[in-house]
């Protein structure tokens, strides 16, 4: 535990095991106060389990979790100072949105008598508390612009409106830490884009320490201060979106961040494909001399190109166009090389007609943007880019 360092969240060596299976293997990381950190990973990587363990909804096998510098192990979920937004929103369907927003305050701040319908009027404390709760509900609703439907039940609202109410129920408690479990997953694409921008703006304005779980790499990259990439219950990499984009730690991370496709070419195949006139200067791929490199060279489609002929002195793989995938301004062109490998390049859509299916060309890429990963999957050498 970091001593009194006003930490947002500290997780140390957290392990969660269910019988034989281990969901989380000794996870450790720190979230600075006011930061928005995403946990990114494919389904089943343990990211939701991690979030639920922090909230106290999942029993922890070993390790420490501290929220705001306070060890939360002995605390009940409601006492941990965390708020949770569920993917399904988990709003109470029988209560109006107003009552949903008030629920956490009613449950924690009112006495048993104060919660009884009508009878609460007998207690002056309950009257005062109820009054302040109503005011806080109004304030939260105004902030999220959900006042018009406060008196409706969740069932009568759209997905976006429900999402806001769920967010409101989290905000109203003024927690030390927000835990969001794929809060945008149930929204349609357009709404997801605007909501994530709003969410980011709100998070900045409130300075709320936030842990955000998602399986959507674009979403994680777009809104996070830092991203934690997880596979199989382990952290694969922690870094800013820029770090992750420039220097993915492993081939697996690179693959996950370069969806829909990452070009992976064995280094020796590439060596054989170097054009004529290689003599003179040595070729370096992502800072590693190609001559001695082993393992896989990974290239994103946006750093690759297709040409009619190889550039002299640079690696160029002969390929055939198999299909195109129109993506608006930019498109993906899928290729196949002599070895049957599937490759992809990104190019402006207006150039698509030049490359019909079946046409032959040469696949090339920006040497400085490519990375070499050793056979084990890690980078073949530590490097700065």
């Amino acid at each position, binding site marked *: 535990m970091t001593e009194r360092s006003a930490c947002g969240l500290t997780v140390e060596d957290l392990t969660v095991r269910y019988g034989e299976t281990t969901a989380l293997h000794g996870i450790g990381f720190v979230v600075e106060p006011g930061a928005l950190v995403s946990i990114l990973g494919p389904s089943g990587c343990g990211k939701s389990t991690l979030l*639920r363990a922090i*909230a*106290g*909804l999942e029993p922890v096998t070993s390790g420490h979790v501290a929220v705001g510098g306070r060890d939360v192990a002995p605390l*009940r*979920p*409601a006492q941990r100072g*965390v*708020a*949770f937004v*569920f993917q*399904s929103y*988990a*709003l*109470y*369907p*029988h*209560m109006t949105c107003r009552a949903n927003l008030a*629920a*956490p305050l009613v*449950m*924690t701040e009112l006495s*048993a008598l104060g*919660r009884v319908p009508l009878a609460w009027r007998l207690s002056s404390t309950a009257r005062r508390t109820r009054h302040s709760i109503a005011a806080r509900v109004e304030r939260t609703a105004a902030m999220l612009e959900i006042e018009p439907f406060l008196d409706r039940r969740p069932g009568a609202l759209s997905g976006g409106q429900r999402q806001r109410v769920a967010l409101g*129920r989290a905000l109203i408690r003024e927690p030390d830490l927000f835990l969001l479990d794929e809060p945008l997953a149930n929204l349609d694409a357009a709404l997801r884009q605007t909501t994530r921008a709003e969410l980011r703006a709100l998070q900045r304005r409130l300075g709320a320490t936030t842990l955000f779980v998602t399986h959507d790499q674009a979403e994680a990259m777009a809104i996070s201060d830092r991203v934690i990439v997880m596979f199989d219950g382990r952290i694969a990499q922690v870094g800013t979106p820029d770090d992750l984009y420039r220097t993915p730690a492993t081939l697996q991370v690179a693959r996950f961040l370069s969806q829909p496709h990452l070009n992976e070419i064995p280094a020796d195949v590439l060596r054989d494909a170097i054009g004529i006139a290689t003599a003179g200067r040595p070729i370096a791929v992502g800072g590693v001399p190609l001559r001695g490199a082993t393992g896989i060279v990974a290239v994103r489609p946006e750093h690759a190109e297709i040409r009619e002929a190889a550039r002299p002195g640079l690696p160029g793989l002969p390929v055939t166009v198999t299909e195109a995938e129109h993506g608006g301004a930019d498109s993906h062109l899928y290729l196949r090389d002599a070895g049957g490998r599937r490759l992809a390049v990104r190019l402006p859509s207006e150039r698509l007609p030049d490359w019909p299916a079946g046409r032959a060309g040469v696949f090339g890429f920006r040497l400085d943007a490519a990375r070499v990963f050793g056979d084990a999957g890690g980078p073949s050498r530590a490097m700065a880019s």
Partner: protein
Amino acid sequence: MRADHRARWRPELATAPEIRHRRRLGAALALPAALTLLVLVIGPSLAVLGLSVTDYRLGMPGANWVGAANYAALATDAGLRGSLANTFAFVAVVAPLAVFGGLWVAILVAGAGRARGLAQTVFFLPVTATLVAMATAWEVLLHPSFGMANALLGVLGLPAQRFLSDPNLALWTLAVLAVWKLLGYNVLLFLAGLATIDRTLYEAAALDGAEAGWRRFTLVTWPMLAPVTLFVTVITLIRTFGEFELVVVLTNGGPDGATEMVLFTLYQEAFRYFDIGRASALAAVFLVFVMALSLTQIWIAERRR
């Protein structure tokens, strides 16, 4: 694509012959069920209503119109009035115990972990077992001289009771047995209801400060069980109001009419005294009661939607 298109009936696009054809087809398909309903349910009910305003007796060649006399007898005849009073007292005790007891047991059983299957079976046993057979066991248990119930009372230093032959006690003995009989069914319904509650609601409740006990019950469990509770309440009321088996098997209405209830009296009037007119009036009252309950349930369920 095509089949999908054809499957969707769009009245605004249909031509007049198409609509006629569709109506005829619908009527033809509904006919068997409608006829069965008419012959087996609506017809007999109307017949009962008709007979209730006559003095028809089984085996007599004809009947005379007596107006509301049979209904008036329900209010004035001491026997019939007693029967109605017994029934209401019985319902007032049994229904709440069977509903809330069922809910309580269901919540306990749901949290029982590994013992859950066993507990469920034990509580459901009275529902599956034939009451007539089980009644023998109860008679032994409740026997005034060698019954185990009295042995237990003796151990506790309490005087022995004549559970089924004491006029002040017999109805309440039957009430206890009725709760025992109804509980398993209600437990099963509540367990089914509990299983449908979204787990994340409980998690949200835990984070909102209602992790367990009464708070969690009032915030999530009870409101989410409301539709099931409504159904269980109505079913229990109807079954309690129509209690017949227990009376016939254990007390035969005695001692001295202390356990006579609506259906038992109806049976007596019709098949012992052959007074079909009176029996029909009683049946009509029973019918109205059941119908009112069912309509209330439908009305509340619709309004909640």
